[in-house]
């Protein structure tokens, strides 16, 4: 009964006759899934299903435990909202040739994610994992007639495949060490091998989660996918990678502190570098994608902290680190989806993703602008929204390493708090830039058609997400029991008896947050009353004496971020495309700044290009000359005789 979650969500696959039917089934499936999740939490015993399976190895092992359940919340809500969103965003009538395909793979994606978090057998896991990866590919690359979509899709496919191969290796090693494919109970694996398994897990899952430098597929794929697919990929699918890391590290009984350091360092680098890249993007969805990498970095830092805590027997670090990471996973799923939905609404209103073509949309799309603001404030981790609530836990965990009892090397982890602070400041810059250049000021593309707020079926999901973001920001203590259960499962010995409430006064966030909101609301009313009868005149913006400011004179997004890009130019390596004329009578001049992705465009692609130049040189061996082919046969024969050492014996 409690399992209805998994199977029920398979329903949407079967319906492709009508989009509405698909969405209806999807919602039904998700609802059933949610019910299943709740039931499984109420009655833990019933949520286990172990069936023999048609393979000589492994079983059909499906278990919903608190950790899976935590991810299920996200899996059953965000994709469902996305499917409602797609009703207007990807109207079947406007995309006759691919809306069915998209619906199918979108449903498959959601269903397989649900299976990923409850599958507890290596083979089953790999199967649903790959279904998830592939359906995400097909959903994201649905507009395959556009070359850039194909390119981005291909990079994603390669990245996810190499990730899967690493996971295959990881599970093979797991089998070697545990003599079982089951992923049910924690196992004691010799530390050296456990370390290899962990590193393989970080690599394999890191590709999916988008940890730097394994993120290379992420910006392109997110930018080029339909927005609700981007939302699900960024909001939910990336988290599957983190789920994998959490799950595998939870199944290994013994661990060393360097595991935690590894994640802490990787997370810090991901966070910092990705947000700096996000800041420097011109493409709205690329910027959002980089910001996802940043948030994944933050979550990885939380997980790393929890690992450190486990290794050094500090339950409060485990609870705060993993609890914060999980909470942030949930929160990021909410507000990042909201932001991608917003981006979709902007695109839907006939705009491109190019920030330099936007501006002033807030006047025509007030609802979208307001919702974007909620998402932006949340993602900058500003109080009183949910982003702060979760980062707060991670921060506190990091500061807890400083307790007087901690040895200096553990206390060094506190340094990560500084990284987090810097990430926060950069995220603020990024989202001020995004919000400002998109919605504020005046339009930079005067010729573009007037934008408008989207239809209700797009607005409702966004409202739900915004509401959830505010709600969780104000009442984070509601989530605490779920977090505690999940963490206790992960580190049963350490975190028992310890509660989040004992560590963190989450209620204060409620007080302060509602305080802020009440004061703002009150002040706004008061202002309204007060201003009645006061002279409010309208005029043009004061531009320091210049009488006729135009939209073209506005600060652009690129110029807004330029000082920071220059500050970090040692790492970002910005490039410039110049076409400046130096003639006596200057003609049309152009200059464009861009920041390439260091890993993809400066490392991986050049290596691939070099290889593709080199490899055809080998092709001369397949030259078409029959008699030389016969010679190959003779030569390999002789070679085998010689190398197997029996040539002399005959």
């Amino acid at each position, binding site marked *: 009964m409690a399992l209805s979650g998994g199977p029920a969500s398979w329903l949407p696959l079967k319906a492709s006759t009508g989009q509405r039917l698909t969405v209806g089934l999807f919602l039904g499936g998700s609802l059933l899934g949610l019910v299943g999740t709740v039931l499984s939490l109420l009655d833990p015993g019933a949520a286990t299903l172990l069936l023999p399976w048609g393979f000589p190895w492994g079983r059909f092992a499906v278990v919903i435990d608190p950790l899976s359940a935590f991810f299920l919340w996200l899996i059953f809500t965000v994709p469902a909202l996305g499917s409602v969103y797609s009703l207007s965003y990807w109207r079947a009538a406007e995309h006759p040739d691919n809306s069915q395909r998209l619906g199918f793979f979108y449903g498959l994606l959601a269903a397989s994610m649900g299976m990923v978090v409850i599958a507890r057998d290596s083979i089953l896991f790999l199967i649903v994992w790959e279904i998830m990866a592939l359906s995400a590919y097909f959903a994201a690359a649905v507009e395959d007639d556009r070359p850039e979509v194909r390119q981005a899709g291909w990079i994603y496919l390669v990245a996810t495949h190499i990730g899967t191969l690493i996971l295959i290796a990881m599970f093979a090693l797991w089998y070697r060490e545990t003599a079982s494919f089951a992923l049910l109970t924690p196992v004691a694996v010799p530390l050296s091998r456990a370390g290899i398994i962990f590193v393989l897990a970080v690599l394999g899952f890191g590709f999916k989660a988008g940890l730097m430098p394994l993120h290379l597929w992420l910006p392109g794929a997110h930018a080029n996918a339909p927005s609700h697919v981007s939302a699900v990929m960024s909001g939910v699918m990336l988290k599957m990678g983190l789920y994998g890391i959490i799950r595998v590290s939870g199944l290994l009984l013994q661990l060393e502190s360097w595991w935690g350091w590894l994640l802490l360092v990787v997370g810090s680098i991901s966070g910092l570098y990705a947000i700096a890249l996000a800041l420097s993007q011109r493409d709205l969805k690329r910027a959002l994608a980089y910001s996802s990498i940043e948030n994944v970095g933050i979550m990885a830092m939380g997980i790393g902290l929890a690992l450190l805590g486990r290794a050094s027997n500090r339950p409060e670090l485990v609870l705060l680190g993993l609890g914060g990471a999980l909470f942030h996973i949930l929160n990021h799923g909410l507000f990042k989806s909201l932001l991608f939905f917003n981006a979709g609404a902007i695109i839907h209103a006939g705009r491109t993703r190019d920030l330099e073509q936007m501006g002033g949309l807030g006047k025509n799309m007030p609802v979208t602008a307001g919702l974007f603001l909620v998402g932006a404030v949340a993602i900058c981790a500003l109080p009183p929204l949910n982003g702060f609530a979760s980062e707060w836990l991670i921060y506190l965990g990091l500061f807890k390493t400083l307790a007087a009892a901690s040895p200096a090397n553990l206390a060094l982890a506190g340094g990560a708090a500084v990284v987090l602070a810097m990430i926060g400041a950069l995220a603020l810059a990024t989202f001020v830039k995004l919000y400002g250049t998109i919605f504020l000021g005046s339009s930079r593309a005067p010729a573009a058609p007037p934008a408008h707020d989207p239809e209700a079926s797009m607005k409702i999901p966004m409202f739900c997400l915004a509401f959830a973001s505010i709600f969780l920001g104000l009442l984070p203590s509601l989530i605490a029991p779920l977090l505690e259960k999940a963490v206790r499962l992960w580190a049963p010995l350490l975190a028992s008896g310890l509660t989040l409430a004992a560590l963190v006064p989450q209620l204060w966030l409620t007080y302060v947050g509602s305080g802020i909101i009440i004061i703002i609301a009150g002040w706004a009313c008061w202002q309204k009353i007060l201003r009645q009868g006061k002279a409010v005149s309208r005029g043009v913006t004061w531009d320091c004496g210049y009488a006729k400011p135009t939209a073209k004179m506005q600060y652009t997004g690129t110029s807004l971020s330029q000082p920071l890009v220059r500050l970090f130019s040692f790492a970002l390596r910005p490039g410039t495309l110049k076409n400046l004329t130096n003639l006596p009578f200057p003609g049309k001049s152009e200059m464009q700044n861009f920041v390439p992705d260091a890993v993809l465009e400066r490392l991986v692609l050049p290596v691939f290009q070099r290889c593709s130049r080199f490899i055809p040189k080998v*092709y001369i061996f397949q030259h*078409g*000359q029959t*008699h030389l082919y*016969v010679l190959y046969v003779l030569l390999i024969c002789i070679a085998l005789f010689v190398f197997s050492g029996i040539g002399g*014996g*005959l």
Partner: protein
Amino acid sequence: MNELINAIFVIILALNLFALGSSRIISVIRIVALQGVLMGLLPLFIHSHLTFTAILSSAAAISLKGFVIPSIMIKALRDVQIKREVEPLFGLLPCTIIGALVTAAVFLICGRGNAVGQSELSLIIPTSITVVLIGFILLTTRLKSLTQVLGYLVLENGIYMFSLLLLEAIPLVVEMGMLLDLFVSIFIVSIINNKINRTFASLDTRNLSSLKE
């Protein structure tokens, strides 16, 4: 008896070198045919008591290798009206020298080993291996499709020769099957030869290199 067998071996080896050194295709065909006949005769000398099956198989081998296949080849040769004769990758003399060196090397290696048991058959193994290798040399250094087929025939001869060591292991059916396969393959190959000639106006296999990579 032993002397006779050894003499045949020597002739077979010499024919190898002739095949390598000959510049006319027709003479290579004849050399290979002669080698085939000698191979066919060998079992009659080796085995003291002649059974019916031995006679039958050797008769089949002789007729196929000595007469049927050569006639097919000669007919194919006439059909294609080859102007220029054997075209080796490098000169005939170097080929012959390599052939001689290979012969010497094989005998040297086999002489050292303990493989050689029975006295009367002592030379079968090195001889057959040599013939196989000479077949390979013909295959890899000749550029005309027809001469490559001849190389393949020499190769087959070498293998056939080895099988004389184990007559009782190979029943008549299998032996006949092998000869049938040989016949069919030569038959098909000559058809293809014909097509090659008609399509490419030459038997030079260097023309057959549009499929690569």
